[in-house]
């Protein structure tokens, strides 16, 4: 890719008047501005306002409908237990999947893995983990602290890949996992924690 004369960028960034450029450079500026003008004026999809407002006005489904929906949709499986047992379970599940067993179907899909969420929230009344896998709703993957030591945890089966997630403490305080190590902007001025789930079969 050939580098442009820096004066072209200065003009396009409003730092230099166009008239200060020699004619051949001016042509390149005009070419870029013409391209941008075409993109500005080109056709765009029809309005989505109706669709958006309809979605916002849609009433919450009834309890019965939610139950039916829950029964017919795919779900994250949640097993909440003491941290030490959750580790043991993760090991057992991994062993079951890793040891070939030609006589039965695998416990997890080839593209699924086990994720363990742990957070230290002393005094919290509830802790949930939310992410795209819960549609960012609480109540889907609650963490447990059965021995009241402030360490909350849950083990879940998730599709292999990268997952954004947050902890929701007491149903209202959103906390990025301080131990996650990786974060990504959530688009709202905060950081979501990132979790990489590897397929258990790998």
């Amino acid at each position, binding site marked *: 890719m050939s580098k442009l004369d820096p004066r072209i960028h200065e003009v396009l960034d409003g730092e230099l008047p166009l008239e200060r450029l020699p004619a051949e450079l001016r042509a390149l500026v005009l070419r870029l501005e013409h391209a941008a003008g075409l993109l500005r004026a080109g056709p*765009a999809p029809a309005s989505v306002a109706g669709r958006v407002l309809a979605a916002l006005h849609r009433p919450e489904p009834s309890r019965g409908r939610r139950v039916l929906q829950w029964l017919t949709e795919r779900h994250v499986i949640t097993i909440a237990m003491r941290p030490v047992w959750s580790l043991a379970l993760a090991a057992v599940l991994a062993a079951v999947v890793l040891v070939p067993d030609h006589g039965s179907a695998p416990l997890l899909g080839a593209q699924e893995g086990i994720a363990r969420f742990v957070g230290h929230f002393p005094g919290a009344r509830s802790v949930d983990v939310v992410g795209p896998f819960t549609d960012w709703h609480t109540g889907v993957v609650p963490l447990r602290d059965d021995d009241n030591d402030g360490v909350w945890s849950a083990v879940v089966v998730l599709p292999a890949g990268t997952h954004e997630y947050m902890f929701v403490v007491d149903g209202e305080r959103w906390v990025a996992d301080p131990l996650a190590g990786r974060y990504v902007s959530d688009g709202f001025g905060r950081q979501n924690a990132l979790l990489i789930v590897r397929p258990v079969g790998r």
Partner: protein
Amino acid sequence: MSGFADAPDADVIARILAGDGDAFGILVRRHEPGLLRFATRMLGSPDAAADAVAEALIRAYRHLASLDDPTRFRTWLYRIVANRCKSHLGRRSAQRVSLEEAAPVPDPHDGEAELERAEQLGLVERALRTLSPEKREAFLLKHVEGLSYEEMAALTGERVPTLKMRVHRAREALLEALKEHR
């Protein structure tokens, strides 16, 4: 709601947060043309762009209370749409997307000038799609949506000098691609 249509974003947001959810329609209509244009150019597909913008607007409404500075609502919306576009492109990266996908189809009833314009737009869109998503985003935000580098920094989380460099590289790549697609 009439009489409120020209109110600044921050005033409309205050009204929504006070319980007038319908006022969100003002913000949708005010900002969706730019968002749809940006998403269409980013994704090269009007249908995918409409989905991305609709999802982003719904998400914005649901998280409106978490917006720290309502005067920066527009930048915030672009950030949500940009994130959705990037994740859409990420999901689609394994598939080869035809460079012709976004090319406008000229209507045979159009005049000669319109046909030529549609042809030129097709050329520019094909050239644009050869840029990496980051460069494409930088060029579109700066030159098509008219954002300042400071607004782009707030939107992307990158520093201004980084964005300036990215825009410069995007201009160079676009001119190069325009030469090749001529």
